[in-house]
């Protein structure tokens, strides 16, 4: 699995891995039951250290997105579509909180902020 990782980011390699694998799972690119690359394989393919991938997988396991089976490796967990949506929503909330609050602090009204989000969506 090739991820798009960069050293020129304020986000650590570990959380870049977590975010990109999570996105693949939530978007349905990785279906439940599908096996994930081994920790060492993913580390090699993406030129990151083994521990970085190990910690990223541990975090995804805590989120319930993946699970491991002894000697068989890691697999995408069964996630209900409703749960997927909830997870994605939760994630979006976490990521938007800071910029939205910053915007409000700089004087933007609720309407202004909603219009920015509408603009982002209409650009797709």
């Amino acid at each position, binding site marked *: 699995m090739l991820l798009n990782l960069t050293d020129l980011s304020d986000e650590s390699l570990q959380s870049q891995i977590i975010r990109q694998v999570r996105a693949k799972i939530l978007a349905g690119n990785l279906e439940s039951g599908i096996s994930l690359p081994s920790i060492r394989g993913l580390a090699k393919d993406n030129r990151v250290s*083994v521990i970085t991938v190990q910690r990223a997988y541990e975090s995804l396991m805590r989120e319930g997105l993946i699970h491991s089976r002894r000697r068989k490796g890691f697999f995408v967990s069964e996630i209900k579509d409703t749960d997927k949506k909830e997870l994605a929503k939760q994630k979006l909330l976490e990521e938007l909180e800071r910029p939205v609050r910053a915007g409000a602090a700089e004087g933007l009204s609720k309407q202004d902020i909603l219009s920015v989000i509408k603009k982002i969506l209409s650009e797709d």
Partner: protein
Amino acid sequence: MTKAIEIKEVIKTYPDFKLGPFNLDLEPGKVLAYIGPNGAGKSTTMHCLTGLVEVDQGSMKIFGKENKPDRTDWKFDLGYVGDVHVFYEKWTAEENLKLLKKFYPNWSDSLVNNLADRFRLPLKKKAKDLSSGNRVKLSLILALAHSPKLLLLDEPTSGLDPVARKEVLDTLFEILEDGNRAILYSTHVLSDIERLADELAFLVDGQLIVRNEKDELTESWRRISFQFKGPLAGISSAVSYTADDVDHQIISRNYKDTMHHLQETGAQNIHKTRLSIDEIAVEIMKEKM
């Protein structure tokens, strides 16, 4: 699990330098970056591990076997690329390889050819005619040809151009995949090993000062800027501090701790950014030098 390296209470004394007493171990499958200024004792550690010099006290084990100079069994598990590349200068690269082959039952010619191709190393050239980059590559092939379980690399990429450096690092990533190999990699160019290393060990003046998982360090260190009027008492976990009027900037070894402290103090406009492993290393070593 048998450790790839197990160093116990080792001391090595020279007239003007003392390494240790120190303990260090490394698990199979892991890469440990061995970091320190020139003269800290990085190469001495390597020389002790390879049996080139004998320690005054303590013990060193390679995959469970003590590295006694009069025995050879532990040497089969070891590959070493030193700071000096010693070849038979009038012989070709190929002839140098053939000589070493005799000492290693595990030697693989196909691995040699594979690496030579990949590194574009001219095997028919005499060692004395090889460029400094190609000398490093020949050393690496000599060290890797018997598929050692432990690689000791002493600043292996110094003198390499960026393309050659990437080829070497790519090779290291690949040999790690099977999970049984370990690498002790000494360097002061941290950007080289920023991605490869699992753990970092810092050596200053012959003493091991910090040993940490890389991700733990990068997750806890931050540069923090903020504004504050009036005198500031000591800030928790800050290791360096600069100020210009109401603007303050610090480097924190534990940003959560520092942020908490700053919020309680009433600092304004607090911003934090990550630090590169190079920046973190400088701060760690500066403190002890």
